[in-house]
């Protein structure tokens, strides 16, 4: 689904470019200063919009573009003379096309009235030229033979005399493949007539001389032959004779397959490209729509910021390089500090400038990957409407901060969790119409979706003005499902957070809309996977607000710097719950070498990172453990045992796969200010392996120490 959405998004981007080209061309025509290729360029623009629109089943757009294109084709072929009236009509047609593109993109209303007027106007130009076009031939013409009303006759055998011309080979066909295709659709016996082969001295290798004599049995074999040999009509002879007839006189009842009437059966069957996301038809036709339909001004489409399209790979390489520059700058700074140079600190001041510039460069490069959240939010408007319809609630989505820019990948991966949360907000958050009115609220519920930058992060909020969380009920459900004990004394925020527990679903009757066994825990997991956090604030009677805080990019992350033996490593901060030094009484031994930590009544396995990664080093004192309690995305926990915790900082993520292959327990690496490489621990893996226990004994020679730069 995401892929198709990508393509859809790309289609509309492309449409914007094409509309620009279209208006530019029409402007030249209006000014009567066309260049040689102007009409062609205008034609191509409309043509390409039509082609893409067909793939997404945007029928309104296809049929209008088709009519427009037909007129342009007439003009292109000089069958139509350009005059100011025609150019004006085309300009207005282009306006309408822009409107249709926009309406298709945003699922907005279509100005049907204007469309019909324009179609009629365009028709005048087409009709005045007698050879009016056949109607849009986008009707599916499927390849299957299922359409036959009559019971297909049982196997019929025919004889085919197939003699390829030189042209057939020249056009890239291979008789063998044609016969293979035939053979796969019935029973085929092939014989070869090689009488025409010339004696060796006269033999011309490029001139085909073979004739294939095929005996083919199938249901409706002639139809199949027509299908298979469709592309080779006219560049070979195919003579089909029924089996019985052949026994008598060969010559008499020969029947040559005539080319079928145009339009020929197309391979392009139904216009169904695998667009999983079946959008609702762009047009909800309502007679009244024309009034509130946005009159797409011609100027609007043109007023687009010029853009440059660059391969994502290039940008990512650039980001990577800049990341290294930042590290390099940090190294130099550190060295200068260590040198303790005499003088008036000019070098330090230069260095400070360098640092500033490097930061600016980094931010600039990161912003290339950033995109406004607007398209994402627009999709959510549709989700809201659908959810409203499904629940019979009146609801509208108010968006804010649509131009906030977020990393492209983050936007893509945010679509599913947001969809889920919006549906939840409509389904569970908002009250029914009657309840709202009874509570003195407006009948129409409101969901506010907003994005903003907040101290180097992106904050996304989904707020409804519903009844607020019913904490008594949440607690009841959690207790009934055994998620918390009856005695537990939880604060309101703690109760709210129960929503995120796996297996929690508030609606006792699973509703059609949001409750499908997946709950808010999936949302939380998705957000965490993006390096983000999610929180809830709820006021009874006033509504609920979910806040998601995300990093601006996936190229850097916050981590806790730890050391294990002589190695420095990073634990992603999103996985960390807390750090602690346990008392001896809180550590229990299980079996030979498994230790458990007792924390708040729960036993959590202790993972010795040093052993786990096979790092050579001394034993630790059991009573001086330093532990980092982490939680994996599947909510299992473990306590990582490390030597020391040093710092918390932002690190640039570097892949290690390319150089070292996959290392279990390590997700990536980073370079520290002192130039040393630090591995970033894969906490998901570390907790998972521990659950699978017994821990595998890594041979000590598997030394993961990395060269110190």
């Amino acid at each position, binding site marked *: 689904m995401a892929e198709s959405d990508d393509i859809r998004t790309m289609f509309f981007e492309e449409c914007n470019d094409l509309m620009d080209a279209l208006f530019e061309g029409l402007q030249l025509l209006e000014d009567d200063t066309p260049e040689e*290729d102007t009409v062609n360029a205008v034609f191509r623009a409309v043509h390409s919009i039509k082609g*893409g629109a067909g793939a997404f089943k945007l029928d309104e757009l296809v049929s209008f573009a088709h009519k427009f294109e037909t007129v342009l084709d007439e003009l292109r072929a000089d069958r139509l003379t350009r005059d100011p009236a025609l150019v004006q009509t085309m300009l207005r047609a282009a306006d309408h096309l822009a409107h249709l593109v926009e309406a298709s993109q945003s699922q907005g209303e279509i100005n049907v009235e204007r469309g019909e007027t324009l179609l009629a106007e365009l028709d005048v130009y087409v009709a005045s030229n007698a050879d009016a076009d056949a109607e849009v031939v*986008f009707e599916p013409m499927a390849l299957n033979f299922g359409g036959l009303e009559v019971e297909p006759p049982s196997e019929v055998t025919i004889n085919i005399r197939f003699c390829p011309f030189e042209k057939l080979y020249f056009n890239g066909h291979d008789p063998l493949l044609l016969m293979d295709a035939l053979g796969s659709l019935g029973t085929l016996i092939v014989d070869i007539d090689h009488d025409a082969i010339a004696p060796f001295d006269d033999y011309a290798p490029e001139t085909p001389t073979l004739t294939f004599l095929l005996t083919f049995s199938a249901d409706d074999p002639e139809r199949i032959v027509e299908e298979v040999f469709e592309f080779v009509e006219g560049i070979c002879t195919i003579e089909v004779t029924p089996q019985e007839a052949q026994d008598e006189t060969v010559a008499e009842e020969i029947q040559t397959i005539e080319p079928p009437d145009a339009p020929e059966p197309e391979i392009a069957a139904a216009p169904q490209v695998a667009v999983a996301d079946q959008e609702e038809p762009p047009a909800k036709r309502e007679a009244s729509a024309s009034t509130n339909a946005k009159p797409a001004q011609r100027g609007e489409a043109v007023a687009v910021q010029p853009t440059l399209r660059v391969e994502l790979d290039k940008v990512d390489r650039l980001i990577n390089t800049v990341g290294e520059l930042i590290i390099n700058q940090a190294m130099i700074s550190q060295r200068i500090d260590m040198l303790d140079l005499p003088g008036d600190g000019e070098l330090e001041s230069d260095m400070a400038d360098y640092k500033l510039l490097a930061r600016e460069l980094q931010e600039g490069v990161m912003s290339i990957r950033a995109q406004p959240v607007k398209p994402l939010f627009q999709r959510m408007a549709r989700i809201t409407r659908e959810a409203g319809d499904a629940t019979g609630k009146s609801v509208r989505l108010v968006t804010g901060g649509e131009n906030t820019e977020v990393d492209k990948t983050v936007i893509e991966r945010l679509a599913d969790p947001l969809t889920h949360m919006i549906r939840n907000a409509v389904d569970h958050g908002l009250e029914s119409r009657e309840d709202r009115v009874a509570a003195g609220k407006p009948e129409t519920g409101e969901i506010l979706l907003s994005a903003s930058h907040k101290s180097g992060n992106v904050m996304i909020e989904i707020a409804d003005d519903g009844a607020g969380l019913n904490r008594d009920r949440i607690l009841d459900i959690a207790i009934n499902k055994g998620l918390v004990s009856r005695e537990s004394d939880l604060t309101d925020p703690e109760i709210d957070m129960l929503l995120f527990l796996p297996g929690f679903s508030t609606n006792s009757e699973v509703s059609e809309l949001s409750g499908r066994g997946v709950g808010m825990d999936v949302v939380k997991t998705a957000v965490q996977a993006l390096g983000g956090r999610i929180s809830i604030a709820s006021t009874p009677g006033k509504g609920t607000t979910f806040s998601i805080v995300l990093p601006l990019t996936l190229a850097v992350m916050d981590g806790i710097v730890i050391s294990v033996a002589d190695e420095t490593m990073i634990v992603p901060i999103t996985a960390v719950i807390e750090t602690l030094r346990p008392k001896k009484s809180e550590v229990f031994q299980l079996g030979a070498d498994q230790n458990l930590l007792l924390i708040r009544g729960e036993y959590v396995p202790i993972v010795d990172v040093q052993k786990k990664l096979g790092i050579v080093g001394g034993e630790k004192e059991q009573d001086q453990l330093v532990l980092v309690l982490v939680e994996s995305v599947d909510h299992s926990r473990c306590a990582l045992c490390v030597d020391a915790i040093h710092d918390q900082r932002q690190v640039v993520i570097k892949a290690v796969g390319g150089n070292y292959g996959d290392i279990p327990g390590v997700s990536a690496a980073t370079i520290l200010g002192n130039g040393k490489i630090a591995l970033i621990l894969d906490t998901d893996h570390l907790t998972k392996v521990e659950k699978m226990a017994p821990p595998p004994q890594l041979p000590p020679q598997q030394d993961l120490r990395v060269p110190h730069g």
Partner: protein
Amino acid sequence: MNTSVLAIDDSRTIRMLLQQVLEQAGFDVHCAEDGVEGVSKFEAVNPDVVITDINMPNMDGFGVISRLRGEEVKTVVPILVLTTENSSDLKTRARDLGATGWIVKPFDDVALVQVIRRVTGHG
């Protein structure tokens, strides 16, 4: 070795659709955005089959077919025309120039893959 496909189309959307559909079907896909790039890519990647649009800037689909079948390149790899055009005149013209087959947009991905398999004999 996977069957390699060269897709020539000036529409980014169509190129991406083709890429997605054909890669899913296990083909190696190369793309070009007009006829001129198509011809030079052809020589660079030596594909097993070419899919080309008709209406394109710089060099149209007919130009592509003539160049690829012409004396200079003289290839016999299958060339499929993929276009919204659907007139017999244009089809005949394409065939006379040396096109192997004709597919009308919007295309059905399953049928397209079938046709490619049929004309290449791969898979």
